[in-house]
């Protein structure tokens, strides 16, 4: 998702950075000078000349090449935790003579940008841009936390030609924002089964005719109706040819209700709860269940919808959700939209409070998330994430790595993730 350009500014900030290669180069040059002066060896003087020439021509060339480079962020793809995100750039060389080689385009963290909270520094590589040419490049990053990263400025740098110094030009570019959706884990089938004891939940009839099994009503026969649909008794009773009409099938409705806690102590629990909610929603969407979301603490209520778009909308909302942005009150009031026949799962951040939410709702604590992760579906998910191909590593090993990775993400341990 890319927001419209809020401001388009091209401000160049040129910088030189010392790198270990440059320090080594200067040290070797100094040693060469000392050696040459001490020994008066003319070949060493020649080597010294070459070393100093390297400094001069490197500085001139790289500076000239970088000053002519302009970068523009073209697009930022949708993203989710554990899924790759692609940022595309257009790199243009306005210089008429000097080509630019070995450019690295990377995002810069500024006061107005927030991407660094959610993902590692995106970096794109440009092997070459000729004078007056324009190329496209892309950076791939793996977000580690959900949220709404904001991109503001990019830096293009290069250590070409000799790696003596790293030269960079920073540009403020278009202001872009996207949503990183929460981590979606494969859930067990049992999670979505109707809670025991609930008799009404799920028994909904449609108010529109369709091709379902349930009876909707009778209507007059029209050419094209199948003979087996004729209601003979009613026809005999009324003297008109009537046919039986079925109600349209209506999918189950599932409300995912999030009970979050605004205090900072529950930050990790909140995140686990949000991940669990996202996983439930995704799993339910895959089963053609209509899923809705309710988060009373932040005043969020999304009515149940069917299809991928509805799930995406829900995941986007979960990605944007900020537990600290409370709407006031205790946040314990659940929307009246949750009907008695709707399925409801209340995901609690921390301990379960059975009094929260509808009477017939299932209650799950965020601490139970590991119990609900499907072993069977994990491998399938891995393969799906690997691009639909069989995973390169053995499934058991992969599953273990996956568990460790997911645990690290869920506990907010960024070092382990990295």
């Amino acid at each position: 998702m890319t927001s419209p350009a809020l401001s388009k500014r091209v401000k160049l900030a040129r910088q030189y950075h010392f790198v270990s290669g440059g320090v080594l180069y200067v040290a070797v040059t100094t040693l060469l000078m000392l050696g040459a002066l001490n020994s008066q060896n003319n070949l060493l003087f020649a080597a010294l000349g070459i070393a100093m020439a390297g400094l001069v021509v490197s500085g001139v060339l790289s500076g000239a090449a970088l000053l002519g480079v302009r970068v523009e962020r073209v697009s930022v793809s949708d993203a989710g935790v554990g899924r790759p995100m692609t940022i595309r750039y257009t790199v243009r060389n306005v210089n008429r003579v000097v080509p630019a080689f070995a450019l690295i385009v990377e995002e810069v963290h500024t006061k107005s940008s927030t991407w660094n909270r959610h993902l590692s520094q995106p970096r794109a590589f440009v092997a070459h841009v000729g004078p007056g040419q324009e190329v496209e490049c892309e950076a791939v990053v793996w977000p580690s936390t959900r949220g709404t990263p904001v991109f503001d400025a990019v830096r293009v740098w290069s250590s070409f030609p000799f790696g003596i110094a790293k030269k960079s030009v920073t540009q403020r570019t278009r202001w872009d924002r996207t949503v990183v959706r929460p981590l979606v884990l494969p859930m067990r089938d049992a999670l979505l089964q109707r809670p025991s004891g609930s008799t009404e939940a799920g028994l909904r009839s449609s108010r529109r005719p369709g091709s379902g099994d349930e009876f909707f009503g009778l209507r007059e026969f029209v050419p094209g109706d199948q003979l087996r649909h004729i209601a003979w008794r009613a026809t005999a009773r009324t003297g008109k040819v009537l046919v039986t009409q079925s109600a349209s099938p209506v999918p189950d409705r599932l409300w995912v209700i999030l009970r979050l806690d605004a205090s900072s102590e529950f930050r990790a629990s909140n995140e686990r709860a949000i991940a669990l909610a996202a996983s439930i929603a995704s799993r339910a969407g895959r089963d053609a269940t209509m899923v809705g979301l309710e988060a009373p603490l932040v005043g969020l209520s999304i009515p149940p919808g069917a299809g991928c778009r509805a799930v995406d909308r829900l995941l986007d909302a979960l990605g944007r959700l900020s537990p600290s942005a409370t709407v006031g009150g205790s946040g314990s009031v659940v929307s009246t939209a949750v009907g008695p026949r709707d399925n409801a799962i209340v995901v609690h951040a921390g301990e379960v409070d059975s009094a929260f939410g509808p009477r017939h709702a299932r209650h799950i604590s965020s601490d139970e998330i590991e119990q609900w992760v499907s072993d069977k579906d994990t491998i399938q998910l891995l393969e799906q994430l690997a691009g639909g191909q069989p995973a390169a590593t053995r499934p058991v090993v992969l599953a273990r790595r996956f568990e460790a990775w997911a645990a690290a993400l869920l506990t907010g341990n960024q070092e382990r993730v990295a």
Partner: protein
Amino acid sequence: MNQYRRFRQVTLAVVLLSIAVYCVAAGDVGLALIALPGAAGAWWFRTRSVAARVPRLMLNLALLAAILYIAMLTLRRGIVLDRVAELMAILSVIKCFDRTSARDYVELYILSVFLVIATVMTSVRLEVGLILIVYVPVLVVGVMQLQIYAAHERALIASRRRAPPWARPLRPKRAVGHGVSVQFRATATALVLSGVTVAIAVFVLIPREIGENFLHTAAGSPRGMRTSFTGEIQLGRAGLLTESLTPVLHVAVSNDAGENLGGPAIVYYLRGNVLGSYDAATGAWTRRQDSGPARSWRVQADAWHQLTGATGQLLRQEITLLGAGDQQTYVFNVYRTARIRFDRTVILDSRSDERIVIPDHRGELKYEVESFIQAPRAEEDGRLREVSFPSLVVRTLTESVLAPAQIPTAGDQRDRLTDRQAVIAIRDFLHTQFTYTTDIQAPPTGQDPIEWFLEDHREGHCEYFASAMAAMCRSIGIEARIVTGYVAMEWNETSGQYVVRERNAHAWVEVRDRSGVYRTYDPTPPDDLRAVHEPQRGLRARLRSLMDAMEHLWVSRVVTFDSGMRDTLMQDGGGFESTLFKSARALVGRTQLAGLSLLVQAVFVGTLVCLVVIAVGIFVRAVVAKRARRRRPGAGAAGAESSPDAPWLERTDFYDRLLRLFTARGCPKPMHRPPLTHVDLIKDANPDLAGGAERLVSLFYRARFGRRPISADEHRAAIRLVSRLEPGADIEPYVREVARS
């Protein structure tokens, strides 16, 4: 991208060249035979497949073993730069087996550069210079490619950071512009040219003779060509005289009018050491301890130092010494030195025997000697000494030699003339009765080598002949001594100088007459002498002669470059004297600061050089770009094939012109955008341009994708149309023409 594929090959070339340059400098054939194929084989092994990589543990063990081996050698023989260089060569080979990350490549390049620096510190040979001339551009290209490789790797690493463990490695799109190979070559060429120009400027301008030996000889002195000449003679050792053709001296001889006195038929004896003391037990000739008080002078660089006040016909000898012994440098000269000038400040040691040495000096040296031909060798002390040779065998033999000519053997019965006759008789006797050989056999244990040579073996080389003559002269009371040095016989027409090689080392005799003057005699049979020292003929000899001339140029212009030469270059400029230089010097003169002179000149010349470099760079780039355009007709931004492989793309140059026109009209076509899409996009802003462009692009598409060649008529029409695509121009007839054709 071709540069990626070539990067590994260039890196291998860098490694091989650095190892080769060290092996050539050190003369280490064994290391060359092991390291060069080893590095190439390791490279092949590593790039063959990922599975073929050597485990890290094995590599670390190999590294450890190499370090231990060098440490052991260092402990045994002391810290020598050669050991460090050898270690780096071995490490380079081991690193060739290692992984192929950018960091590993960087380490390889660092090792290579350090190895070359170590080589340069230990050798100034022409071969080293020639390899370096190849090495530097290859290194520049390799390092440039390394930066691209490393940047790509950094981006890849960033794209895998925080990736789930199961994720397949994603390869982000690699952005490459059009004409990368041509532009890379042009950039590399410009860098090398400008770098070399700046390097030459730095080389010329950097002040010399500042801080010389302030670190003492920590790094050692450079190793030039090793001389076969030694300060002493040791008879009685088995072996073979050197046949080495390695040059050790370049000698130019001229008179005071500057006329060259050298030539193919003229031979000069270059006097080095004087040996007057013989030990029969060891067969060693050494310098006499009573050869007068030692005298020492400090001679400033480029300043004449007067040694004697003789007058006569002047003989100027310009001598370039390419290498010297381990302890001290002998100053070779043809005649008695009147005055001498060195290219650097030196300490001279001399005694009355006129042997001149520079203690504690190794490496190349350039000096001029002025001698006077009429002036004989100086007397040592003006008195005649009682001399004898304590060998009955030698005495008896000498008597038998002199008896036929009725020359008395008793000294008091001879005068100056008969002394000379006796010496000549002895010399002739040795010329005719003995055989010259380079195959040296050891005398029986306990026997005096001279007696063994004269009585039994009757074969030997110049040292035996000179020793025998000196002994025979001494046995009849004539004072004689041995002189060692070189015979300058190989005349190089190209350089106008004599080339003296290791094999030209020689020994002869100086005999003192009754007036106290030492005169030179050579007892070695002249035919044999000529056969041994005469330059070889044939193609190889000619090639060697050419190499010698190059070596002379290398040594005289590069290795021995000094502040005097720089001043000559800056002031007389080798024909580069210009008003600009005069202005610069006038500016310096006004400042009245002598110390500022060099700085101002350096800044001035540096600026000039930079301007020249920029001009050369622009020119080279323009030429390369033009050549590239010529080579690739029709290869526009769409990335079309070149004409030899794609004949249907001939006559598509109108498309290039169209692309340039897009740029000129402020709507350049991005690389990623198809031409027709671009035309659609610019239709609103440039309707006139878009109308004609659409037709031209369709024509290009037909050739590019339909592979239908463009006819001459179509091409003509397209060119006419593209040249008429100007704002407000009526292009309709031309569009119709293109459509018709």
